[in-house]
Every structure is written in structure tokens, then in C-alpha cells.
């Protein structure tokens, strides 16, 4: 028999062996890049040569109108898209859970279907469907909904609407699944008790369903807000590199273009990415504070 101390050492050593491969990959491909970015933000590239500029990159970004415009677009999309999507996801989750008995599984499957498409694939489909002489306009004109075709992709206002519509199509079913799981975890007896007390369906929704789903809603909101803040695929593919005329340029797309397309100023691009990191952290903290604090 081994002594107790040596058995504990043996367990500890075994534990490190199991986590070692993941730690190795993490150190090389996650920890090192993040740490090395601290060096990158203090450098300025001109062509292939770089030199130290201290906090110069952060001073430079203050005067970078297009970057702030792009970040503004992120917030605009976020303010309209996230609430619309969360509300729709909630409506469909409640309908599927409480409202119907038949074909529940089939509708759940179909409404989730958009969430399995790659962002590039659906962006391309939407880009072709929404051409000014394309199918979406044709259908709506034939049905008499539209008199004139809408320039979905070529008008600055409608291009933003297009992205909101596309994001909502892609992600509503995905969030609905979370809400459905949340609804399944609510004890039906709570509703029965409320029914006995004569509470209306609307009252039940606001006083029982919503409060009990708060953690799930919080999860959906935090991931959606963070996703919108990092939005890249849709403005690059669907609205063709942030077009028209940078109207749908987002921060991540702008940073990508700074580093890989327009010029290769790694230091500046990395500094800009710090703004997104900071905003993602602050927005997540605010949401957790506002929504998460209530249930404790």
C-alpha cells in the first residue's frame, strides 16, 4: 500500500497529465498571442518596418472618424436587432410550449433550421435574394406590398435594415431553443396555482414566465450583444465589404481591413481591437449586473 501523501502526489501528477495537451495548445495559440498583443499595441508599422510609438496608436484612433462610425453601426445594429430577436424568440418559444399541441416537434425543427447554416452561406443566399431586381422585391411587388423595388443592398439605410433582417432570420430559432429549454424547466404546478387564483395568461407571462427565464434571457442577451459587437461575416459578404460607401462597415471589419487589406499596420489594428475587448467586457458586466442581480 502506498502512503497517503504519495497517493495524493500520484493523483496530482495524473491530473496534470490529463490537462497538459489542452494547456499546451492554450499557451501557444491563445495565451501567447494575447500577451504578445501588449507589445504590438506599442508599435507602429510602416511597410515592413516597425518602431516604438508608446500610446500613439490610442491617440491616433481618437481622430479615426471611420472607426467610430463603424463602431456606431455596431451599436445601431445591436440596439435594433437584439431586442427584436429576443422578443421574437420568446414569442415563438411560448407559442410552441404553451400555445399548441400538434406539430410541436416539426415547428421547432423548422424554426431552428436557419441556425445550422454557415454565416457565409446564408449571407450569399440573402445577397442574391435581395438584389434590386431580385426575387424578394419581385414577390413583394407581385403581392402589391411594394410599389417600387427597394435597394436593399445599395441604399445606406436599407443595407442596415438588410443586416438586421438577416441576423434575425439566422439567430431567432437558435435563441428560441434556449428559451424552450428554460420553459421546460419551469414546474407546471406554478401555472396551475396561478390559474386557480384567477391570474390571466398575460399576468402569468409577466409575473411567472419572464422572471423565471431571466437567467436564460441574460445568457441570450450577453452572447447576442457580444456577437453583434464582433460582427464580421455579414457586412463582409452580404453587404459587400461594409457597403454601400461604408454604411454597414463594422468595427471588426474595419480592423480586418486595417491589418490585411488596406495596410498592414498590426500595431494600430491590434489597438483598435482592444476597444472591442473593453466594450465586450463592460457590456457583459452591465447586463449581468442589471439582470443577474435581481434573482439573488
Amino acid at each position: 500500500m502506498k502512503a497517503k501523501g504519495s497517493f495524493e502526489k500520484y493523483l496530482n501528477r495524473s491530473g496534470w497529465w490529463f490537462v497538459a495537451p489542452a494547456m499546451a495548445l492554450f499557451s501557444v495559440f491563445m495565451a501567447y498571442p494575447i500577451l504578445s498583443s501588449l507589445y504590438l499595441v506599442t508599435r507602429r508599422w510602416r511597410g515592413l518596418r516597425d518602431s516604438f510609438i508608446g500610446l500613439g496608436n490610442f491617440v491616433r484612433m481618437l481622430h479615426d472618424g471611420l472607426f467610430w462610425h463603424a463602431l456606431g453601426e455596431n451599436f445601431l445594429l445591436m440596439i435594433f436587432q437584439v431586442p427584436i430577436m429576443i422578443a421574437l424568440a420568446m414569442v415563438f418559444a411560448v407559442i410552441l410550449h404553451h400555445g399548441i399541441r400538434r406539430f410541436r416537434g416539426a415547428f421547432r425543427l423548422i424554426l431552428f433550421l436557419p441556425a445550422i447554416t454557415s454565416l457565409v452561406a446564408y449571407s450569399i443566399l440573402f445577397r442574391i435574394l435581395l438584389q434590386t431586381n431580385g426575387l424578394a422585391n419581385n414577390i413583394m411587388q407581385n403581392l402589391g406590398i411594394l410599389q417600387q423595388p427597394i435597394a436593399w443592398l445599395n441604399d445606406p439605410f436599407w443595407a442596415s435594415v438588410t443586416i438586421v433582417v438577416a441576423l434575425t432570420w439566422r439567430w431567432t430559432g437558435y435563441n428560441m431553443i434556449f428559451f424552450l429549454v428554460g420553459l421546460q424547466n419551469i414546474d407546471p404546478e406554478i401555472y396551475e396555482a396561478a390559474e386557480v387564483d384567477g391570474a390571466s395568461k398575460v399576468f402569468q407571462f409577466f409575473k411567472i414566465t419572464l422572471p423565471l427565464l431571466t437567467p436564460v434571457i441574460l445568457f441570450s442577451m450577453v452572447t447576442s450583444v457580444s456577437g453583434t459587437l464582433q460582427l464580421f461575416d455579414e457586412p463582409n459578404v452580404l453587404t459587400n465589404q461594409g457597403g454601400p460607401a461604408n454604411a454597414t462597415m463594422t468595427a471588426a471589419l474595419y480592423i480586418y481591413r486595417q491589418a490585411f487589406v488596406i495596410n498592414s499596420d498590426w500595431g494600430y489594428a491590434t489597438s483598435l481591437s482592444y476597444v472591442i475587448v473593453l466594450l465586450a467586457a463592460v457590456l457583459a458586466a452591465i447586463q449581468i449586473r442589471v439582470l443577474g442581480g435581481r434573482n439573488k
Partner: protein
Amino acid sequence: MSMAQARFSTPRFFVYLLLVFTSLLCIFPFFWMILGTTLNPNDVVKGTLIPGSELLNNFVKATKSYNLPLYFYNSFFIASVTVILGVIVNSMAAYGFEKFRSRARDWVFSIFLLTLIMPQIAVILPLFRLIAAFHMLDTHWAIILPFSMSAFVIFFLRQNFQMFPKEIMEAARVDGAGEARIFTQIAMPSMKAGIASAAILLFITQWNSYLWPLIITLSDKTKTLPLAMQSMMSAYTVEYGGLMVIVTVSLIPVLVVFLAMQKHFVAGLVGSIK
């Protein structure tokens, strides 16, 4: 008369109408895409309900002028190797973190979790420079290695391992089994459902990945399907028919996995919010 029939009132009718309408909106792009594989470019854009006769032609265009088989192979190779490597590395880590608790390892796990909120754009810039320094640009491994280890998958599998009783491990030790054997022959086989969900998650994330391959890929050698679609879309004359073929082909594996393994698919999502 049953309850269900009695309740089929007017509001219920509108609820079903809403669901049918929304379902049509959800399915329509897929329907139009599949129809599009048989149409000439002009009809793809304008749209028609009658299948055309261009399917073979479109397929030839996609495979001859755009090398669809190579892109499919690249996507498939990258996603499959990511799954194999990812399942091994992440399940080992999840098992190590859960069954061999120590203060130091808990701390490492928290650092892993912290990176979940890290926006991708902030990681890939320095990561690109690292890959370039390794002379690994334009290789499959540059797309596979950084995304095979996933803090989210480790977190998810760790939840699953909680249900695996420690007593079994202790009994196996008394019987003289080594830790590697306990893990591969007892713990892993009892976790099939969790592993399946993790594998689906890893496969789909990598199969659909866009930003990182876009940066790393310099030639056709490593080009994946999403990149191929995008370059077809930005061509001077867009071959809409051939494009519909590539988009359809890119969606088939995910659709098959999703329909075949719905339970695990949803289980993967459920595990992540608990």
C-alpha cells in the same frame, strides 16, 4: 370530442397561421437554393418555381472552373481532424479538471473560461503573426490547431463528467488499472452522448468558420467552402447556378448531422447554459 379539437378556436387558428408563415420564411431560402442548382444564372436571380435543366451544367461549372472537390476535401479534412484532435484534447482536460480537482488546476480552468468572452478579432491578429513566424501560413494545420482546443467544449464536457462516479475510478485502481486505462476504457465509453454533442459542436464550428481561414489561406491548396463561395460571389460575372451548387453541397453535411443527431445537437446547447 377530444380536448384538442374543442380548443381549436379562432385564436388557435391564427397561432398556427403565424407558425406556418414563419416556417415558410425559414425554409424558403433553402428551397430556392436547391431549385437554383437546376437553373440558369438569370432565373436564379429572378426566381421561378419550375426546376430548370441546368443541374448537370452547373455541377460541371462548380467542379471544373471552381475546383469544388478540392474545397470540399479541404473543409472536410480540416473539420474532421479538428473533431478528432478536439475530442481527445478537450475530453482529457475536462476529465482532468473534474476528477483531479486541485486549487492550481481550478485556477487554470478559470483562465480558460475567461477567454470565452474574448472577441475573436483581438486574438487572431497576434495569432496570425505567430503562425507566420512558424512558417505555417496557408497550411491545413494552421486552421486546425488553434481551434481544436476549445474552452467551451471543455466546460461542456466537464459538466458531463460530473455524472461519472468517482467510486468506479477507485474500484478500478484497486484492481490495478492505470489512469490512462480508466479514462479510455471506462470513463470515455460511458460518455458517448456528451462526446457526440462535443464532436458536433467542433465539426460545425470549424466547417462554418470564415474569418480565420480567410486570413490564413493564400492559395487554392487550403481554400475551404465558405471562402470558395465568397470568391465566386465577388467574381466579375457571377455563376449563380454553380454558386448554388457549392452552397448546397456545403450545407449537406451539416444538415445530415443535424437531422441524424438532433437529440445530441440540442443536448449540446442545453449543457452549455446549465
